[in-house]
């Protein structure tokens, strides 16, 4: 099943890349730096629930680096990477506990993505004033987490079997 796995992973990365591009084209312009809906997280969620944690981690990492190098700069790459790592760890732990459905996991992912980004931004810019934006980002992360979670729940239920290589 190795070939299928690699093909699936490639497909997922391409999809995540496209969704990142869509998000790049339609930035959520509400005057808050780093605020994102996190459409690409949809793919990471689906991958986490179908391909497993190792592939999902790889997918998440490759996506961030690709998008960062293509559309952003080094600083942006750094922020996204921190957000992605923190968010992935949070989702992994949440999933392990089996306390939450896919929506709860997604909410944690969304919230921690923004928290990670802002922490790195604060360290890089050496300013605490960004802390002011954190509550907004948590709220946005929660809302987008719910939406992404519900969507990825539906997708996993309907097409998950196709990718299910386990």
């Amino acid at each position: 099943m190795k070939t299928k796995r690699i093909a699936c992973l490639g497909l997922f990365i391409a999809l995540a890349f496209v969704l990142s591009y869509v998000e790049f084209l339609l930035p959520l312009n509400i005057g808050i730096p780093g605020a994102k809906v996190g459409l690409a997280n949809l793919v990471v969620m689906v991958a986490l629930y179908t391909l497993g944690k190792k592939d999902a981690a790889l997918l998440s990492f490759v996506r961030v680096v690709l998008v960062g190098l293509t559309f952003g700069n080094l600083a942006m790459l750094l922020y996204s990477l921190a957000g992605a790592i923190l968010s992935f760890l949070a989702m992994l732990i949440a999933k392990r506990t089996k306390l939450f459905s896919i929506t709860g996991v997604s909410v944690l992912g969304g919230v921690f993505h923004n928290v990670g980004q802002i922490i790195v931004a604060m360290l890089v810019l050496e300013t605490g004033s960004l802390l002011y934006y954190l509550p907004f980002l948590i709220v946005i992360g929660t809302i987008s987490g719910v939406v992404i979670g519900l969507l990825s729940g539906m997708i996993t239920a309907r097409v998950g079997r196709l990718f299910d290589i386990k």
Partner: protein
Amino acid sequence: MKRFKIISAVIILALIALILAVQYRGKSDVSVNNGSNKELSKYTINFLDVFDTSTDITGFATSKEEFDKEANLIKEKLTYYNNLYDIYNEYDGLSNIKTINDNAGVQPVKVSSDIIDMLEFGKDMYELTDGKVNIAMGSVLKIWHDYREAGLDSPETASVPALFDLQEAAKHCNINDLIIDKDKSTVYLQDANMSLDVGSIAKGYAVQRVLEYCKANGMNNILFSVGGNIAGLGARADGDNFKIAIQNPDLESSNPYIEKVEISDGQCVVSSGDYQRFYEVDGKRYCHIINPDTLFPAEGFAGVSVITDDSAKADALSTALFNMSIEEGQAFVEKLDGVEAMWVYHDGTKEYSKNFKDSVIE
């Protein structure tokens, strides 16, 4: 389950509204975003150590520490020029203007090129203003300075210097007796009774030099206000021009500012007025700007403000214009490129040079 969901949804929405409302209200309005996601805040420090006046440095920086670092460098530089151009105090191991004055008629004094350049600029300004700005007029200004100090100390016995004394002193104000030897880096006053008073140009000259120093060292978005001399480097953090208020010469007026102007990168505003430093004799005000022709304080205006792109020039020109009639002044400004002026009379009416109003806001 359905009820639980609805209640939860309501609670969630309420919490979101609460967070947004509380946090939005707490937003401070001093922070501005300069577009690169780097938060810049406005800082100001004030100090009283240089040029016998109050200095404000306003800057935009990401942190107080960063701003303080720059402000301290600026203060250091201003102090350096202050000591160099001081005519009243001596400093250990430093030859300044006072050293030159003390050696008038005795010997040439070896001084830093920063003094030579400033004095040469003073000579240029003498030429440009046809003698209305004369740094060699120390002997006359000293008399007025002493009378003013005495008058301020005991207002009851305040008096005006005798014209005869002033005329005697005025015999020792020839700018050509100021001998500058650039090769040897020396300055010599060949008339033993003469002295330099660089009050009309030194402050503006120092501000201009410090501004150039800041620019060379990559600083930006800084506004200097050294007494009446204001000079800006770059713009505000939001990209707008610096907005400068010109003080109303009528200090009792309920309207603190007589005009508001904006200055673009590198421009400066300098005001000279009879409200800045003066004393009174029998209810009549005698200000610190002395007209070289009459040897008495100029009385035509309450204040003159100049906008141009060189702080040193602006300082000299505002003094010169204060000493001219309005007709002379208008013609003089007309001749110069990139210089605009505003004259304020004692009754509060204003006159402008041709394009001054381009800078006025509101």
